[in-house]
């Protein structure tokens, strides 16, 4: 049963680490936009947009 004495603290540590990571993610806007990221893999490699044509036509 001694292995428990090692594994239980590890499980608690992992739990706390997961909790902290999640709180960090929530506070850093990771869950504010749940729609766009799903689209990103569908995109082609973004080409650098042609700089001179940035000005729109009148």
């Amino acid at each position, binding site marked *: *049963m001694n292995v*428990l004495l090692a594994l*239980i603290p590890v*499980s*608690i540590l992992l*739990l706390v680490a*997961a*909790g902290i990571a*999640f*709180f960090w993610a*929530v*506070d850093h*806007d990771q*869950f*504010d*936009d749940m*729609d*766009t990221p*799903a*689209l*990103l893999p*569908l*995109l*082609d490699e*973004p*080409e*650098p*947009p*042609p700089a001179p*044509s*940035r000005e*729109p*036509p009148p």
Partner: protein
Amino acid sequence: MSASATACWHCGESLPAVDVPQAVVAGVAHPVCCHGCRAAAEWIDQLGLADYYRLRSTPARRASGRTDARRDATDWSRPELARHVVHRLDGDRREAVVLVDGLRCAACVWLIERALGALPGVAGVQVNASARRARITWDDARCTLARIVETLERAGYRALPLDAAALDDSRRRESRAALKRLIVAGFGAMQAMMYASALYLGAFDAMDASTRDLFRWLGLLVATPVVFYSARPFFAGALRSLRARRLGMDVPVALAIALIYAASLVEALRGGAEVYFDSVSMFVFFLLVGRHLEMRARHRAGDLGDALARLAPMFADRVRADGSLERVAAADLVAGDRVHVAEGACVPADGALVGAPCRVDEALLSGESAAVSKRAGDALVAGSLVVQGPARVRVERIGADTVLAGILALVARAQTERPRLAVAGERAAAGFVARVLALAAVTAIGWSFVDPQRAFTATLAVLVVSCPCAFALAVPAAFTRALAVLARRGVLVVRPDAIETLVTATHVVFDKTGTLTDAHLAVERVEVIAGGDPGFAMPGREGAASVAAPPTRDDVVALAGALARGSRHPVALAIAAFSDAAPTCFVERVRAEAGGGLEGVIDGRRLRLGHAAFALRGAAHAAALEDAVVLADDNGPIAAFHLSERLRADARVAVAALRADGLAVEISSGDAATKVAAIATRLDIGTWHARQRPADKLARLATLRADGARVIAVGDGINDAPVLAGADVAVAMAGGTELAQASSDIVLAGEQLGALAGARTIARETLAILRQNQRWALAYNLVVVPFGALGLVPPWLAALGMSASSLVVVLNALRIGRHAETTPAPASLPLEAPA
């Protein structure tokens, strides 16, 4: 995203029959409906963001191409105008929250983030699709708010910078806090269950006391944050309802959580028989999941503040003493100022018209479809649209004193006065908890006489085995499932108790314009009158055949359409739309006469389109022409157009279905009696009220309710908002105004009235399942509690029984909507249905 050839590539609206503009995107020409859409599509392509068209799931909003929007955009560069909306961060950094109208699907979010992110100087863009808000930070030295707003307008969105107070984003804080609570409860519940299963196994394999205690303390360790952090909303809610001297849903829940946790803690401390940290964590987690779903539905429905921002214009053109115009923020106007309102712009403040007459769309007051004529001295209200102008207004009341603000206040008051039903399930659960507590007390007292040693264990067993979990879960489990099923069918339930009220309702009150009809006029019938010049011929149709022939239907439609394109009047718009398929002709010298019609020269002939009196220059005419729009030349009438409002496609079916369901249906409209009567006859509705102002509609509601009726109100307009807020169940159309949606319980996202009858069926099913669940929980408890009280239930069995009874409740709830699944439902739910 394959656009069919008949729909605009950008916004999906129907294409004009001739002269279809082409937008060149990624080297391919696509047909679009208007030049606004062409500009938007090509601008998106130039930014290198044409992928938007591949990613989106909903067509874009029709780009307005309005010049005043463009002008508003440039005005944001002036600091004195922008100071209300821009928040200064350190140094040159600035921040603003922009409400983005037309944001419909995830691809829009992507497009906006890319388009703005590519602007030099923009440091951060965060788009919240459900709130339709973008939070933007930029470096003032390299970028301006004006450029940001302009970029959004170019891409086809309407951008409204919100007051700086909006930066204090209460919704964002609320959803973040809820998410954190949920995840803490989830982690805690999983981990507590793991430690508890070791204890349950230990109960069979004679675990030694120190290991058992270790696992108990571990359980305590993970359950503590769940109870003290995650479950805090329940405790706060319970406290609130106790202060208001009610037994709400939160009271039994909070009591159950507190008692089980406290009892388990005592047991752990004194090394007693059993602890229930796993049960309490699971319980909290399940309940939070339900709350979370409910919150998301609520956030989707929009809020009152945003609704006001959409209606009242941000800027006004103040007339200086010398007659020149100066642009000021609408918030800076004072009573006595004179403002100039251009055609197509909104009136910035309440006031009186000075100078030339104009026509304004006052749909926000009356819901009326047609614009009304105003003469000098007449009152104009803030937020109404000048359809034909310009208008010059002497400002009388601004800000909180305007009629518009008054309507908002009416909405807020009606909301607080709404008859709050104590949900039957809540009442039952509260009563049940009271009885369980009494029983637990009896058990404790009884055992203290018989065997004081076992009193605590037996009491705890009664508490846990009879735990109101199944009871408390009976309501949220059924409601959560019902919300999900209804959302899939295009019915967004904002306030869950509406489900119960929906079933008990006895009356449905419909608004007319925009709800039963789709807000546009349509040409119902064209009558060709051969009274015109017999020698008349269509331009470009030279040839012997047509010289002496009377004009054909197609000819008159083409002529009227050509004239009608010269005006934005709703009648003209309807005729122009009707003539889309007809060949175009060239019109010269178009002139609009307010309250009369349009006059122009086509192929050398002077033609008039409008009221009979105007078109015929006061000549005698048949009474049949009185209600029609007449096309005439100098020799007499050529044709008459009969217009009517277009009923929504499913209005008739929906009304019939609701009536078959036993509801009394009536119409309450701000429109004129004749129009309301016509629609009522077509839908076979006996009771209708016309010319109803918001306060009249509320009074009508009060009368109905005084007779014991429960009323479902269905509406879309600003003038419906107070009624919606005061009704037992308020249903708003997703295409309607924000204000109506913000004061409603249910939003019809698919714009399908027919979904309402279906929603009632689901609601009825939900209540049936809910009652089953409660009966099951009661029966289970009646069987088990006596054993628990006698001390015959081992603790692991008590916990198992509790989990199993809760599981049965949840599984039963999943049956809701299973029969209804076969009916076709909208494949995906757009954030905002096309307006």
